[in-house]
């Protein structure tokens, strides 16, 4: 039952000689191969790494929007279907340098734009808890792979909730570090001012462990910072006396089932000696609107490089303009085009002030209000998502779909660290608890999450092994 083991347990077993490093890798490769036809978590598989280091013998998966030399990096898009990486992303390289081995590149919504993997150009990934349901997104492939025990951990990227929401839907831990703490070099950009790489793991200790390995200033990414953060040393400390804010904006429209699970979580915090106070942060109502102006604007520019000239798909036509048009029309999917158009519109000279500039100013306000909250509270808590995983095709209107990110977006706008960990079940499906902290308070939110995890007890894994359908 190796697949049930955490990264930490595997490291110990390998270093004790209980497990052989090569057999661990081949075990997970085989398990991945067996389950992938059912879950479709991977876009491609590989075996790259095997250096010496603490992660020696530990396989992992990365979202297929991270460059890894020797692999194709598709970003879940037809336009990059055959794109071979020319270098390796810094965060991935750090894990390889620590001895880890990449065995798969996971599915995602095209260019990380989505919350279900339904917008992958290739296929949707299935939720290991219920194959009829989405795993969440955009890091849905990474979440499903970790939840099903195909890998002990995986990397995802989070621009508006893309690590935390699938973690919530798949019953695992998803951690988005403070913006600037992990290098974005080699992460194909969606919205540069919010994109952040982070781990998806079985438990909080693993999240802190992997976090520590990927943190750090990168001379190749000017938005990284030189602050040194250690997430492990304070992890087991008590949270007694801490104060958490629960914004009513996160609970007002919750259905009673989710509310009940949340109330149980609050009770657990009280048992741990922490206080939870309901507050009102009305400005959070604008977070989704602000996000859906800034993120598509940055995306419209970031995706301009996919023009069929130097690499990727090219539909050659008589003129350069037709070549651009046809390449991008055939290469990009519906959701990506929608966001490019949205972003192009809000950045246009006529509308810049009314949309982009106003959104930037609003973003500063939201950040400011959150900072003020963190002066009084150690963290902001709430559910990660308002619902459990939905069924494929279950959210047909773009607006409903965008509202999936309501609770997760504020952390991206403010650059805050945030983590989602399993809170409980609603109708036999997992749902996550989100903890958001002040910038660089990563050790504290991990400490809070760890305290909760201990009092909650072990969270079950989905049963994906016996014949498939649950």
């Amino acid at each position, binding site marked *: 039952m190796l697949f049930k083991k955490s990264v930490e347990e595997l490291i110990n077993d390998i270093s004790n000689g209980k497990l052989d490093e090569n057999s661990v890798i081949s075990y997970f490769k085989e398990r991945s191969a067996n389950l992938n036809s059912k879950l479709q978590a991977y876009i491609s598989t590989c075996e790259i790494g095997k250096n010496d280091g603490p992660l020696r013998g530990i396989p992992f998966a990365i979202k297929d929007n991270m460059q890894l030399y020797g692999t194709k990096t598709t970003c879940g898009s037809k336009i990059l279907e055959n794109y071979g990486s020319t270098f390796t992303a810094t965060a991935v390289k750090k894990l390889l340098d620590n001895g880890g081995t990449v065995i798969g590149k996971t599915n995602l919504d095209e260019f990380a734009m989505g919350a279900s993997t339904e917008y992958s150009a290739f296929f949707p990934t299935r939720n290991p808890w219920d194959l009829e349901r989405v795993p969440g997104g955009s890091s849905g492939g990474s979440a499903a792979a970790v939840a099903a025990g195909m890998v002990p951990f995986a990397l995802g990227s989070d621009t508006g909730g893309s690590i935390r929401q699938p973690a919530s839907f798949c019953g695992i831990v998803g951690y988005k570090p403070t913006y600037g703490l992990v290098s974005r070099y080699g992460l194909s950009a969606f919205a540069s001012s919010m994109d952040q790489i982070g781990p998806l793991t079985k438990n909080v200790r693993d999240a802190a462990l992997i976090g520590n390995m990927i943190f750090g200033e990168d001379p190749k*990414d*000017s938005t990284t910072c030189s602050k040194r953060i250690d997430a492990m040393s304070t992890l087991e400390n008590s949270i007694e006396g801490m104060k958490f804010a629960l914004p009513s904006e996160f609970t007002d429209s919750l259905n009673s089932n989710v509310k009940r699970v949340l109330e149980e979580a609050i009770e657990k915090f009280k048992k741990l000696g922490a206080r939870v106070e309901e507050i009102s942060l009305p400005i959070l109502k604008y977070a989704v609107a602000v996000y859906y102006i800034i993120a598509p604007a940055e995306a419209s*520019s970031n995706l*301009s490089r996919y023009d069929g000239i130097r690499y990727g798909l090219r539909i050659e036509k008589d003129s350069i303009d037709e070549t651009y048009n046809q390449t991008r029309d055939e290469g990009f999917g519906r959701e990506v085009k929608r966001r490019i158009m949205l972003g192009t519109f809000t950045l246009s*000279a006529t509308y810049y002030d009314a949309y982009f500039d106003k959104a930037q100013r609003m973003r500063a306000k939201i950040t400011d209000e959150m900072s003020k909250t963190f002066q009084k509270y150690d963290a902001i808590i709430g559910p990660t998502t308002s619902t459990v995983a939905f069924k494929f095709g279950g959210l047909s209107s773009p607006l409903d779909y965008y509202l999936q990110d309501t609770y997760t977006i504020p952390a991206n706008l403010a650059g805050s660290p945030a983590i989602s960990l399993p809170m409980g079940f609603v109708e036999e499906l997992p749902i996550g608890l989100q903890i958001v902290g002040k910038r660089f308070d990563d050790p504290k939110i991990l400490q809070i999450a760890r305290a909760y995890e201990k009092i909650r007890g072990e969270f079950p894994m989905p049963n994906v092994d016996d014949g498939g359908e649950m």
Partner: protein
Amino acid sequence: MKSVIGLEIHAQLSTKTKAFCSCKNEVNAEPNTNICPVCTGQPGALPVLNDQVVEYAIRGALALKCDIHEISSFDRKNYFYPDLPKGYQITQYFHPIATNGHIVLSNGKRVRIRRIHIEEDAGKMFHSSENITKSTSSLVDLNRCGIPLIEIVTEPDMEKPEEAREFIEKLRNILKTVEINTGNMEEGALRCDANVSVVDENGHSSSRVEVKNINSPRFVQRAIEYEISRISKVMKSGKTVPMETRGWDSVSKSTVSMRSKEAENDYRYFPEPDLPILSVSKERIERIKKSLPELPDEKAKRYERELNIKNENAQLLAKDKEISKYFENAIKIGISPKDASNWIVNEVMALFNADSSEFDSKKIPLTHLKKIVEYTNSSKISRLAAKEIMAEVYKSGKDPDTIVKEKNLLQVSDESSLVPIVKEVISENAKVVEQYRKGKTTVIGFFVGAVMKKTKGKADPKLVGKLAKEILDGEKSDQTD
């Protein structure tokens, strides 16, 4: 009719590496060899600002008397073109690094510089046909892509094409002096776009027309002249001048419409999220200011003040870094400042101007110049012969001593050999002698000229004048008749 002219200049900074990656800043290498994931726009690659770019930009901006901003930032200018791999250019649109500078022209006019900002160059395109619309394929070389530029934008303060030309020349010399740009306009290291509009007698102004692709100071003047006359004609015919972008064609010496302003891109500028705010400390700005070399205008003033060189010559000697170095070295090896100034301005520079080539000190080595000056000052050769030697040095690089011998240019200055020639000339020109006798003494010059002609310029003109006067006044007649 009055014209209003403003300029936009792109200057490549001669840094070691590109603006946002560590590729070499070498445009002329084998195509697509100085490239990397960053400057070819691979997914996931990120820009990192080269600090030397900041240093050079500040040097240039200080030399142009700008205010340097302690805080500036980068933005993206979005448009599609095959030479632009990311689909956007990183530039400084909202908050440039410097504003509010100027250059003073020789007529005393102060041309204001509105702003200077840092940006990156695009790649180079090669089309299968001279005419882009007839091309069936194009190649892209990305060596130039990501090379740092500063864009210098003037206020529309110039009224005459010559002013624009002088502005460009002065600017080029300043950038060369502070060693941030090669000044090579033909190779595109310095590129100029001109904005031109014309105001008629009734005060009605034409639309502004932008002229691009001007690759020499001379063409800056020519292109603007052409454009002013073109716009004036359109205005006189009663038609409206469309606001447009035109390209200068240096072959046909005319401008051609490239695109109308309505068809211009909306560049969708927005702050570059991949780069933090650029902050430079007061101390750093001060340190750079102190490290700046003497600028051409200051140098000219010093030449006037300390070396007693007349204003016009001082300006000419100081404006070009190479020439001023040549001038100062000439003085160092013992040529007097006055001689050095006169010879360099009147003779040396004239030679380079005559075949419109760039000044190159190697073509007339200072030791050669010194010999020519000494020959002349000691009356061993005539001024005319000196000119001839100079031209020969310029052409062949031969030593002046050799040239003097080969061409037999030593001045004849012994009386015994000159007197018969002077007499010959006097006897051949009885009418002129008559005039002299009637009191028109200036005709001495005529006799001197004639003797010089007969001796092929070798005679010492002063001595010839003296002899002619003596012979005509009868003082010499006894001994020779």
